[in-house]
């Protein structure tokens, strides 16, 4: 295929994606969608954001974090404090959540980023647990009982839906651009062979830092929006390992190391979760089994399977 055709194909793809985005956006404004459908899509969009970010770290950069819930908790509490204590607009709260998340990530990055392999996984998790434990003892945020998030007037579902959609599109766009940049090329080299990448002059520290902070930024934003919808936050929900469990499921099942993987994974995750609600208690067991089978027999997930199929 010559470059011209490739470029054309790229333009067509971009047009299709933009069209999908606009359709979703307009149908949000137009009130075409039922509240129920919007609630599903709201979840799917946010999980895509979370999944893409975890995938950016684990699937592309080889940094398997088990502590992304740290940023969700920080952002959720930021929103709670801004709206409930200071009575500020919730958009402002989301912004503060993102800033707090990124600052927290920068601080953690200094400590954790040079820890390698599975110890990084544990360290990130322990850091999140430590934050959770700290919040359980912190009087200002209601200790173990947590806080309500009171926003008046409470945003309509369509508003949250549009917010989640924009967030999702932005996270996909940023991931795409990041992967196409020098950082992205360095990342793949890093994941495949970290010492070879270092000898090729890839600035590993810088790349890891960029990825970690980008992931923290979008994860915080998604976390803030999630908790606005939930209306209440406490340490065990904000800093819950379940957040990361869902990201792992989404990325593994969808396809680690592919852009489309988390999108596929999120749709399956949300739909399967809704369906499995009829069988209380079984959802994580079934998703866990599927994940293990995918790791063993389909290492690139559904996205990888489809790619092979097309070839």
């Amino acid at each position, binding site marked *: 295929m010559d470059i011209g055709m490739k470029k054309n194909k790229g333009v067509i793809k971009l047009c299709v994606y933009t069209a999908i985005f606009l359709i979703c956006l307009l149908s949000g404004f137009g009130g075409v969608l039922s509240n129920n459908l919007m609630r599903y899509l709201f979840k799917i969009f946010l999980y895509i954001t979370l999944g893409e970010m975890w995938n950016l770290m684990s699937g592309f950069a080889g940094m398997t974090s088990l502590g992304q819930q740290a940023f969700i908790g920080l952002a959720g509490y930021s929103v709670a404090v801004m709206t409930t204590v200071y009575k500020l607009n919730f958009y402002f709260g989301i912004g503060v959540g993102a800033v707090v998340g990124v600052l927290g990530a920068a601080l953690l990055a200094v400590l954790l980023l040079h820890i390698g*392999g599975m*110890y990084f996984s544990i360290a990130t998790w322990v850091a999140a647990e430590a934050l959770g434990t700290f919040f359980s003892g912190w009087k200002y945020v209601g200790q173990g009982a947590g806080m309500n998030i009171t926003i008046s007037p409470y945003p309509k579902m369509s508003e949250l839906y549009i917010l989640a959609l924009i967030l999702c599109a932005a996270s996909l766009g940023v991931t795409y651009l990041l992967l196409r940049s020098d950082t992205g090329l360095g990342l793949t080299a890093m994941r495949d062979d970290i010492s070879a990448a270092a000898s090729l002059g890839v600035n590993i520290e810088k790349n890891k830092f960029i990825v970690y902070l980008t992931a923290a930024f979008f994860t915080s934003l998604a976390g803030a929006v999630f908790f606005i919808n939930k209306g209440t936050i406490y340490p065990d929900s904000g800093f819950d390992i379940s957040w990361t469990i869902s990201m792992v499921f989404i990325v593994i099942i969808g396809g680690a190391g592919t852009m489309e993987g988390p999108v596929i994974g999120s749709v399956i995750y949300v739909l399967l979760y809704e369906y499995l609600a009829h069988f209380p208690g079984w959802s*994580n*067991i079934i998703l866990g089994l599927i994940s*293990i089978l995918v790791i063993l027999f389909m290492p690139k997930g559904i996205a990888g399977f489809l790619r092979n199929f097309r070839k």
Partner: protein
Amino acid sequence: MYILQVIINGIMLGSVYALLGLGMSLILGIVKLTNLAHGELIILGAYCSVFLTSRLGINPFATLLITVPLMFIFGYLLQRLLINHAMKRGAEAALLVTFGVSVILKDGMLLLFTADARHISSELGSSSVNAAGMDISLLSIILSIISVGAIILLMVFLNRTYTGRAIRAAADDPRAAELSGINVAKTFSAAMGIAGAAAGIAGFCVSMKWTFYPDSGGHYLLIAFVVAVLGGLGDIRGTLAAGFIFGLIQVIGGANYGMLISYIFLIIMLVTNPKIAHAADDLSAR
């Protein structure tokens, strides 16, 4: 006198912590794998003991005779049928598989045993020994003896038996172990079996000492990890010492701050320990 009491309490608590970390440390040192399901193995062992005591009326201590072999078999099969295969796909795949197993076990136990708090109550809990003006709980003494005994037993096993030596050899150089006639896959499975058995005993202690829930595994996994890292990854004697230190921190710091201090302590350990950075390189090279 107060200081002495604190030290004794810390050491008794610490010996149970050491037992919690024992299986984790073994697997980290030998299979070079962080078993994220270790906490759930402990809780599974705890349910096993509770079930046998409450449903079949077996003496709590006698349940060990059933729990330990069952947990050994469970660990062995887990490694043999699942993790050995995942390890062929890389360290990351193996880590995520143990993560999946932990989630499945946790929710499986929730379905099976409900979310109710469980505990084996025994009259030992309220009896205490009086010595030098201190009250020492009889239960704590017995659990400490069981914990330290299990750790010593494992040390002897690793040093004195053919399987023990094979386990250490496979940890040192898997390929050279194969050339010595050792089946590394089976050896790793045996190691996970032992880790399961150790988790079973630890679970018994948990059920006697504290109340637990299906989702308590995460809490115990973190304790196990702190102890294993502090003890030097696979160093059994180090695990015991680490348990004691950790126990003292808990007794001095109290429940909430004790955990927080340990978490921070662990992160400092991870950040500053060159052996861990090195171990991580080893793993990515496999």
